[in-house]
């Protein structure tokens, strides 16, 4: 690759692979970088300084940082359905074929018409929108807001389904180390050497942290070599796992809670498995969500350098000093040819040294401090840079990219320097967010002029720069100590052996937040365009707490969460209000520490895998019969079985119903909940959980039961069959199976632990089929043969039996939801498929039809049987016409509270049937009842239709409903009001809630 192609690339050095040139596109132009580059370093190497436009004023912005805290260099990465808005170029690994576009500009980055908004910037101060856009009223939604919405936002989401996959994984370890800089590596190795199970997470694709960006030595040799040695040793332990490209984004609860040291805590982390590739390899996820359960953790996430607020501090070409060092040393990129450094820290000077070493002309070193350390001044001489001590940069020039800075020296003289890059160092903010996720407040440090961790969540230690210890020497020793201590607290001990030496380094920080003599806008939040003037306005208007400041100005709410600059705003507020920064405090950090793709949290649970799909044993058979399936909770149930030539589903259902009512039908009812109940006190138990009596139920019989909640409302209904002495099997509705089991276990374990009874859910253990219709007995005779006699005498209505059928245990219940002569036959689920085929075969000569949920629903409405539509959690037994099932001879759950006035009020809606006067006028569930002649108001609301269907037997629409004082109103004509579906009301007659075979003769014949 020629130099010209990458004009800012330094000809040697760096941790890039010059043998692997990678081509990429930015804003439709082709460029080349190297493996090991980030998109930001590759853009800088190609001489591109302006990479985006700001949110409000559309100012040109360039790369500020070399890390995840980047506020400016956000791009739309990739194209089509993989387009990712707001992707930080500073952490995007370059790959061959990468495509990126700048954001928030139109038509192009260079000519952005949105920049016209800068002209109105005197109006666009913090909170201006709260004070205007109010007149005329309708203009807000029609005009102002749509304009604001179009202008707001940064990048564009793809708008298409994400084509990539995501995974989730649990991880368990003794010691989790977060960050693999010097402190983290030392901690991980110390813990590993003592035998602890260690997980080490690093955001970057390289281990080493600041050691990759700086020129340091450990034990007298290059620190990068030390990193490789530690990495190799860690890899040699079987119980150490290194997760690269993995951000730990949140600290959550384990058993330990916020403060206790013992127990566990859960960390959320996201591993970017394939983001450094053009697309994930086959069978690989794009990202993996880790839930890491750790007994101890060491936070070694380093610190982020912060800026200084001065006029035009956002010009492209102005960079944090640490970023400059990273680009020069790690990526072999020279951010500028004529450069200056503006600092209030010792650290800033090192950027000048590195720049000079790399061949840049360092024009000036501007240190706000009057007397910088003599050793640094000495070292600066060699660079030829002019020192401006006690001076400040008051303005950065050049709207498309930095062209110069104006300096004000200690004598208040202004000098303009021509430079194309400025390195800024305002001190360091420890990356302590994880330490505050459970509510701990950080403490202000007067030593480093930043917030540092204070009271820590139990089991978490902080080491190195994350704790405010800014030198390499401290990072190594604190890391080693924290790792060793974590392991030792858990009982691991072993050879120590970690003693690393690093040189002394100057690390003084003097506070400089804002240059008061600034000209032009001084930004304290680059991405949200918050300036020092906005902070002053907030103070003037009373928004003085850091939280009000944040919410009023949107300071620190952008994708970078204000990591490089929000503290500057707090310092300005502190100066304006006379309260110390410590007193003002800092807004609490909340997960995630770094933005995480929503897809990663969802993992594989999307599309058809959103929730598990439960299929019954007879599913395959039903499919062969042409079933259309419908979701019933997680279950799939056959809705109907259409036959060729049927015009619509109604025709199918009419046929199925008629077939059942005249011949025989077969329906899979396996999804209903089944609870096995055993024990000497099982009958007593049933008496207490059902409102009606079960202790009188003989062996071999089934009874319908109604179950209430303790608050007196109906919870569920079903049947219980007395299979043998001390053994029952209960059925529940499909929807409530789990809740009922929990309710029963609560009653058994907590309310009446003295009862000898045991419960087990057997829903999935048994496949169960309803065989219904006048010919159902004949079908069973043919199917069962000698296995069981099913004559009316031997096996009357509500009989049940356990028997063996073809060598398989089986159960038969003579119960009926359809109202026909009917049976339910149950076999162990593994024989379900064979059983349904055997039943169908036995019924073939009788013309058996499979029928689905829809036909079942028609038939149960014809019979006035209840489902979840009626058992909706707000109905009482009396509402449903089941008052007689409220036993007065015994106690049961719900008895006392069911007597409250609100539950016994005679005006309550009661279950009725309704039939339209015109039988073909559709009646729909959810329609409301109105008395004839009364206007449709809430006051006149008389109740509503709970279930409705067209009955092919009655050749009419029929419905069930809850009607105020319903039982007194049989024969009355009322109206059905359904404005959301129909413009005209339907006149209906109130009837008893049973339309077909009211005497129940079919059940018993």
């Amino acid at each position: 690759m020629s130099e010209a192609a990458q004009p800012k690339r330094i000809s040697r050095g760096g941790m890039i692979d010059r043998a692997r040139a990678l081509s990429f596109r930015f804003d439709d132009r082709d460029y080349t970088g190297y493996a090991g580059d980030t998109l930001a370093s590759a853009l800088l190497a190609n001489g591109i300084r302006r990479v985006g436009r700001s949110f409000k004023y559309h100012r040109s912005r360039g790369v500020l940082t070399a890390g995840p805290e980047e506020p400016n260099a956000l791009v739309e990465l990739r194209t089509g359905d993989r387009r990712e808005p707001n992707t930080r170029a500073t952490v995007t690994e370059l790959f061959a074929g990468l495509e990126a576009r700048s954001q928030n500009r139109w038509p192009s980055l260079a000519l952005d018409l949105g920049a016209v908004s800068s002209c109105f910037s005197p109006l666009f101060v913090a909170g201006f929108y709260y004070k205007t856009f109010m007149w005329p009223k309708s203009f807000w939604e029609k005009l102002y807001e749509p304009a604001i919405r179009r202008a707001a936002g940064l990048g564009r989401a793809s708008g298409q389904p994400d084509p990539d996959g995501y995974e989730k994984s649990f991880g368990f370890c003794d010691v989790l180390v977060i960050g693999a800089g010097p402190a983290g590596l030392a901690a991980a190795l110390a813990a590993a050497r003592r035998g602890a199970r260690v997980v080490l997470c690093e955001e970057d694709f390289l281990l080493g942290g600041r050691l990759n960006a700086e020129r340091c030595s450990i034990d007298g040799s290059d620190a990068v070599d030390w990193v490789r040695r530690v990495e190799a040793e860690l890899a040699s332990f079987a119980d150490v796992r290194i997760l690269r490209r993995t951000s730990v984004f949140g600290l959550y609860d384990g058993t330990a809670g916020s403060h206790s040291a013992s127990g566990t805590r859960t960390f959320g982390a996201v591993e970017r498995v394939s983001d450094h590739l053009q697309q994930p390899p086959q069978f690989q996820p794009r990202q993996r969500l880790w839930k890491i359960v750790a007994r101890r953790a060491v936070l070694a996430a380093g610190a982020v350098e912060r800026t200084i607020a001065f006029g035009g501090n956002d010009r492209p070409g102005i960079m944090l000093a640490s970023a400059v060092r990273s680009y020069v040393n790690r990526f072999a990129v020279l951010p500028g040819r004529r450069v200056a450094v503006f600092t209030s820290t010792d650290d800033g000077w090192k950027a000048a040294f590195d720049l000079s070493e790399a061949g840049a002309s360092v024009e000036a070193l501007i240190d706000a401090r009057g007397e910088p350390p003599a050793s640094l001044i000495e070292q600066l001489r060699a660079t030829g840079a002019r020192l401006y001590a006690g001076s400040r940069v008051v303005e950065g020039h050049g709207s498309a990219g930095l062209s110069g800075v104006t300096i004000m020296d200690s004598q208040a003289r202004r000098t303009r320097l021509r430079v194309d890059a400025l390195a800024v160092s305002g001190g360091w903010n420890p990356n302590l967010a994880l330490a505050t996720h459970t509510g701990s407040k950080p403490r202000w440090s007067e030593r480093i002029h930043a917030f540092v961790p204070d009271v820590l969540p139990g089991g978490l230690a902080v080491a190195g720069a994350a704790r405010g210890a800014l030198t390499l020497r401290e990072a190594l020793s604190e890391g080693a100590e924290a790792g060793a201590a974590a392991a030792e607290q858990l009982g691991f001990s072993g050879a120590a052996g970690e003693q690393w030496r690093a040189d002394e380094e100057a690390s003084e920080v003097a506070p400089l937040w804002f240059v008061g003599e600034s000209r032009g806008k001084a930004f304290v939040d680059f991405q949200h365009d918050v300036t020092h003037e906005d902070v002053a306005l907030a103070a003037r208007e009373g928004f003085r707490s850091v939280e009000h400041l944040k919410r009023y100005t949107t300071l620190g709410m952008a994708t970078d969460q204000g990591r490089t600059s929000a503290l500057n705003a707090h310092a300005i507020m502190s100066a304006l209000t006379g309260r110390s920064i410590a007193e003002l405090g800092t807004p609490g950090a909340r997960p995630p520490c770094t933005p995480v793709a929503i897809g990663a949290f969802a993992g594989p649970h999307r599309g058809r895998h959103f929730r598990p799909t439960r299929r019954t044993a007879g599913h395959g058979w039903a499919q062969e019969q042409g079933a259309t399936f419908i979701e019933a909770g997680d279950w799939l149930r056959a809705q109907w079985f259409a036959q060729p030539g049927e015009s619509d589903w109604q025709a199918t259902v009419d046929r199925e119903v008629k077939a059942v009512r005249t011949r025989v039908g077969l329906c899979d009812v396996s999804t209903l909940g089944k609870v096995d109940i055993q024990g000497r006190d099982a009958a007593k138990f049933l008496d207490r959980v059902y409102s009606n009596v079960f202790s009188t139920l003989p062996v071999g019989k089934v009874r319908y039961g109604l179950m209430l909640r303790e608050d007196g409302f109906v919870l569920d209904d079903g049947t219980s069959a007395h299979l043998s002495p001390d053994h029952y099997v209960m059925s529940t509705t499909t929807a409530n199976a789990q809740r009922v089991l929990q309710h029963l276990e609560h009653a058994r374990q907590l309310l009446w632990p003295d009862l000898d009874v045991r419960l087990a859910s057997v829903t999935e253990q048994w496949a169960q089929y309803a065989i219904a219709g006048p010919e159902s007995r004949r079908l069973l005779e043919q199917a069962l043969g000698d296995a069981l006699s099913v004559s009316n005498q031997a096996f009357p209505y509500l009989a049940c039996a356990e028997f063996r059928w073809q060598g398989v245990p089986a159960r038969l219940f003579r119960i009926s939801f359809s109202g026909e002569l009917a049976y339910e036959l149950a076999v162990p689920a593994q024989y379900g498929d064979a059983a349904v085929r055997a039943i169908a075969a036995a019924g073939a000569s009788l013309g058996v039809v499979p029928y689905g949920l829809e036909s079942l629903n028609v038939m149960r409405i014809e019979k006035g049987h209840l489902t979840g539509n009626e058992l909706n959690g707000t109905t009482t037994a009396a509402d449903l016409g089941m008052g007689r099932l409220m036993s007065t001879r015994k106690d049961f759950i719900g008895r006392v509270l069911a007597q409250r006035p609100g539950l016994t009020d005679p005006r309550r809606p009661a279950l009725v049937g309704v039939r339209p006067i015109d039988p073909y006028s559709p009646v729909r569930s959810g329609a409301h009842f109105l008395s004839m002649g009364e206007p449709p108001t809430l006051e006149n609301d008389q109740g509503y239709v709970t279930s409705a269907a067209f009955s092919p037997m009655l050749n009419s629409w029929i419905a069930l409903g809850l009607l105020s004082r319903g039982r007194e109103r049989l024969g009355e004509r009322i109206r059905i009001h359904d404005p959301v579906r129909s413009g005209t009301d339907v006149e209906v007659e109130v009837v008893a809630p049973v339309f077909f075979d009211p005497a129940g003769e079919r059940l018993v014949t």
Partner: protein
Amino acid sequence: MRIPCPYCGERDVSEFAYLGDAGYVRPDPDTADAPRRYVEAVYLRDNPAGPHEELWFHSQGCRQWLQVRRDTRTHEILGLRVAGPTADPEAG
């Protein structure tokens, strides 16, 4: 949050169903003031900010009701036993 089930070991909270206040005692239904006592038992809660005795059901595990002592300010699990007056294995 993780709950150390005495039968299944420490498990993620997503395996458990929550019921709340473990102080619930089902009143005697036959006393004269039963209606008032039932209203209080079913509806009124202590709801402390601090240690809270509460019921969790290990629905995805052993289906045991557990009585957990947990701090509602910090979510720390302070203690745990199998729920129910006589079902505590440690009580013998």
